[in-house]
């Protein structure tokens, strides 16, 4: 595996020497990360390890203090977050990010609108021209099991369904690389099963990079795991490799408050 590590073509996303300093604190310190095409790559680590900061750097919601990010062979270190999303690198959020006041269908339609109508500013046209997007939106919502909730307000959905809606909205952009920030956080057992199946299905044709606390899910889902601690990479490998790494074991036991289920 490591022998092909330098072969750029196999990797969708590569970060080199990624560093973020907040007022003297190195939240992310010299992180190298390579995400292989069509794989599920997990980013784990104790609380405060810099996972979410790392995520925000990769999606350009934060600007790195140092380091480079390459996506599909292109240097994207200085792009705006919307620009990177337009290139097919789409993220989800730790706190469920749905448009609460809109219906489930309208949520997905809004994402389709961006993909189909692009960046247009057509304030003179009737929004009836968006009705043609609804069949595809219904299809996407069926795929995540939300076909019975099409016209419910998104804010009224139970938590697990909101996450499913968020994934459907993200998929509406037909992204090549999905970054999921704790997709299973706060879910019940039943929702966890359904959502991890969904992630697995999604990853058949796309690449997924996710931050996740639930280690049993990480163990079954991911092809590769990067363990972060105090902003730096502690270990990388498959689940068997990293779970036996003494440094990883120590980092986790040193943090008894962390979810280690």
């Amino acid at each position, binding site marked *: 595996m490591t022998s092909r590590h330098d072969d750029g073509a196999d990797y969708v996303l590569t970060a080199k020497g990624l560093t973020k300093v907040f007022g003297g604190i190195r939240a992310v310190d010299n992180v190298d990360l390579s995400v292989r095409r069509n794989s599920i790559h997990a980013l784990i680590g104790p609380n405060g390890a810099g996972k979410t900061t790392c995520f925000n750097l990769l999606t350009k919601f934060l600007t790195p203090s140092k380091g480079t990010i390459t996506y599909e062979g292109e240097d994207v270190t200085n792009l705006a977050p919307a620009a990177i999303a337009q290139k097919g690198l789409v993220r989800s959020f730790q706190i469920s*990010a749905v448009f609460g006041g809109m219906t489930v269908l309208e949520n997905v339609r809004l994402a389709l609108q961006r993909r189909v109508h692009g960046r247009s500013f057509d304030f003179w046209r009737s929004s009836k021209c968006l009705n043609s997007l609804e069949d595809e939106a*219904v299809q996407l919502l069926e795929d995540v099991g939300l076909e019975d909730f099409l016209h419910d307000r998104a804010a009224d959905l139970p938590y697990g369904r909101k996450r499913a809606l968020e994934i459907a909205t993200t998929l509406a952009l037909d992204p090549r690389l999905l970054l999921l920030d704790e997709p299973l956080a706060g879910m019940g057992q039943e929702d966890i099963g359904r959502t991890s199946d969904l992630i697995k299905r999604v990853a058949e044709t796309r690449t997924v990079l996710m931050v996740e606390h639930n280690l049993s899910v990480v163990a079954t889902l991911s092809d590769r795991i990067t363990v972060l601690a105090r902003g730096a990479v502690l270990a990388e490998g498959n689940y068997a490799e990293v779970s036996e790494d003494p440094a990883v074991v120590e980092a986790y036991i040193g943090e008894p408050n962390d979810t280690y289920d």
Partner: protein
Amino acid sequence: MSKQAETTNRTTAIHQSRPPSDARARMTRHHMIVFALIGLFVVIAPQFLYPVFVMKLLCFALFAMAFNLMLGFGGLLSFGHAAFFGGAAYAAGYAAKVWGWPPELAIAFAVLVAAVMGAAFGFLAIKSRGIYFAMITLAFAQMVYFYALQAPITGGEDGMQSIPRNALFGLVDMSGDGPFYWMVVVIFIIGVLFMYRVIHSPFGEVLKGIRENEPRMISLGYQVQRYKLLTFVISAALSGLAGGTKALVFHLASLVDVHWTMSGEVVLMTLIGGMGTIFGPIVGATVIVTMQNYLANLGSLVLIIQGAVFIVCVLTFREGIVGVIAKWLKTRL
């Protein structure tokens, strides 16, 4: 899943979309009824109301609607909209008085001036959010105010007085309130229909998305800053339409139009009528302007009554008058 099961599934899903599309039709019907009522009002109002009062009403309704486009649909609280309203009033006045332009061109010029000001202020203001955004817009508006106070062309404390209403297209006499009333009605209707279209356009959908969840819109690839800027410009231009028209109605553009209290008043109108509703600002403007007009002999007591109405409104029905009515009727107005 077999192909057939998938098809059945799909049919049920599409079948379920029936009732809401009915709801949408019902909503559109409600809107048409309200439009008809407004149309009826403007036609018969001069029979029993002073036309200048109705024209004032229409100008402020337009101004409040323009403001609501930003606050209610874009989630942007500007505290400097007096700059566009008042700046446009001076622009229309100058064009009509000094250049002798006909009213349609004077108002068009006012809209242009407001739009350019909106683009310049908006470009700098949208980089900040919330209270900072409000303060920056206020600061710009104060600059315009002091310019109006000091510049030789604006008439300083006296304002720009006896602005003429020249002949429409150079042909139709507009000096009487009778004919000019209909011109104001046409301007109002064009403004309202334009705003209605903006709200119900793909652009309007994006705007609602930004109001609901801005970071998510960014992550979906929308360049929200550009949408905000365009909203700012549209809102400023329509405020200019209201301000320019107002200057010709009263033959006057004065410091009151650019003062920060004007920015406050439009916030008040929007909140009382119902922020984020389509017709709320019209109702809010009607309430405030009517109060100012009919309670004028009470002097400064008007301000106290205005304040009391505002407090009652915020404490008891935060959705505003139209918001509450829409809730009763289970529709969006």
